[in-house]
């Protein structure tokens, strides 16, 4: 089972554990973290773009800074690329042990063709879970329509895969519970109909607890039951 967390944000975290540490923890547990910064009027400063880059680097994933119009495509591309890269990595390890190198480009064309055929097939048939983590701080409000569309679009593509593929959606900070950093919008699903009710009642708030939210999402992705009120306990597991 491949596991990914995709963080969509538009600024710097300002509360709790560092999101870079949280992402490194995810990577250690075999979960890839990708990050998209959504910027419409250039409000993401140096600090924000640096954080985005670092979270992805620590999480073994990739990062992009885009405007709302490019969001759907970027989400799509990142998810797909991450699947291919994960599998390529696994196949690369095998190549390394057989050939002493793991570079596809070093293989003669006919062998390369066979290896890529295997990568293609595995990319299509392996099971996959993607947890989307949406920054719901006040500045994200005008971008939520684009976020919804991107989620819809991603689920459409996941559904088409041969392997079992599911999506879950979270936003942070929680709008229900003042003290919780994370709230679930959608449990693992591959049904499009379940998306319709999402985000209608989000009350955007100021703080951006990206790190704690990332850790809580990781707990969920790592298949520990999701309990929204158990925030303190979960956090203390990771805070060093």
């Amino acid at each position, binding site marked *: 089972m491949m596991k990914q967390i995709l963080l969509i944000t538009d600024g710097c975290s300002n509360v709790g554990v560092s999101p870079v540490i949280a992402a490194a923890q995810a990577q250690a547990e075999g979960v890839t973290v990708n990050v998209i910064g959504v910027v419409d009027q250039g409000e993401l400063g140096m600090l924000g773009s640096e954080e985005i880059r670092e979270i992805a680097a620590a999480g073994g994933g990739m990062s992009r800074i885009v405007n709302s119009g490019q969001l*759907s*495509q970027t989400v799509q591309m990142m998810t797909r690329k991450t699947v*291919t890269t994960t599998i*390529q990595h696994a196949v690369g390890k095998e190549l390394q042990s057989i050939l002493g190198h793991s570079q*596809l*480009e*070093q293989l*003669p*064309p006919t062998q*390369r*063709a066979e290896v*890529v*055929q295997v*990568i*293609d097939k595995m990319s*299509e048939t392996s099971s996959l879970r993607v947890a989307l983590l949406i920054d719901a701080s006040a500045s994200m409000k005008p971008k939520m*329509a684009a976020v*919804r*569309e991107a989620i*819809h*679009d991603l689920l*459409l*593509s996941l*559904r*088409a*895969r*041969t392997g079992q593929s599911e999506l879950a959606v979270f936003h942070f900070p929680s709008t229900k519970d003042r003290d919780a950093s994370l709230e679930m919008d959608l449990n693992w699903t591959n049904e499009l109909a379940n998306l319709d009710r999402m985000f209608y009642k989000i009350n955007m708030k100021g703080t951006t607890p990206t790190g704690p939210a990332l850790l809580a999402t990781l707990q969920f992705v790592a298949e520990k039951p999701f309990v929204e009120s158990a925030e303190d306990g979960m956090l203390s597991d990771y805070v060093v």
Partner: protein
Amino acid sequence: MTTWYEDAFRPGSEIRGKWNGRVYVVERLLGAGSNGVVALVRRGTSRFALKAGRETVDHQSEINSLTALSLTATSFKHFLVEVDDMIVQDREIPFFVMRYIEGVKVSDYLHKHGQDWIYVIGSNLLRKLMELHRCGYVFGDLKIENMIVSKYGHVDLIDFGGMTLKGRAIKQLTEVYDRGFWKAGERVAEESYDLFSFAILILKVLDVKNRFQGLQHSLPQNREIEQLHPILKDSQAAARIAPFIQRALNGQWQSSEEAYQHWKKQVTGHKLTPSPLKLPWLKICFAASLLLFGATVYIYW
């Protein structure tokens, strides 16, 4: 900023294959995208199209599809000429060489030769799709940019990056041509997927009032396939094929074979409406010549 391919693909420069050692001379760049470059090249007296890609897996995946196709007894036979690597700035860049097809974009062709050519072009495109479908593949990313029209409405497909085995998830797509984008079906490689894109392609080239422009950026919850129907009424060429297009948009063609049979009937079954002026003129001329004949006979009698 210079891109990685600028030097390697400058007109006149040589591309040498690492494995097979063949040398190609670049004539000019045909196109460059985010993950590939296509150039017109020459070897001896023959011209080819050469595509180089930096994303090794994606690139190889397209080669695999083309290799499979090139072995079939279809019009795609021998489409793929050679596969090799080139070295650019100490890095291996994989490339493949394919048949070079000279032609223009379908929209330019219709602009130059008239919209009535859409019937022939549609037939030819459907036949291409049928061939692919028979081999077990779906083209996937069917759009104006991925086909070339040459003399007398001859059609060729040119970018096979979206080609997908039937039943799998579509590998590569363009939003407006994608039935998922219009909430009209799944992104699974089925014949009806290509036929949906086919319908959008036809609508796009016949979209005289540029209605697509506005729809493309509408919110997904407001986006519906019915919004495309007015295009069918805008142009005379579109009116004739309207029922076909609607069935394709609704996913009601089970196979391209069935769709093609219907397309042919729709196009050839109709009497070609002769332009209304010609017939009266013919009659007048005929009457005049009769009169003249009568007069001549009378005079000489």
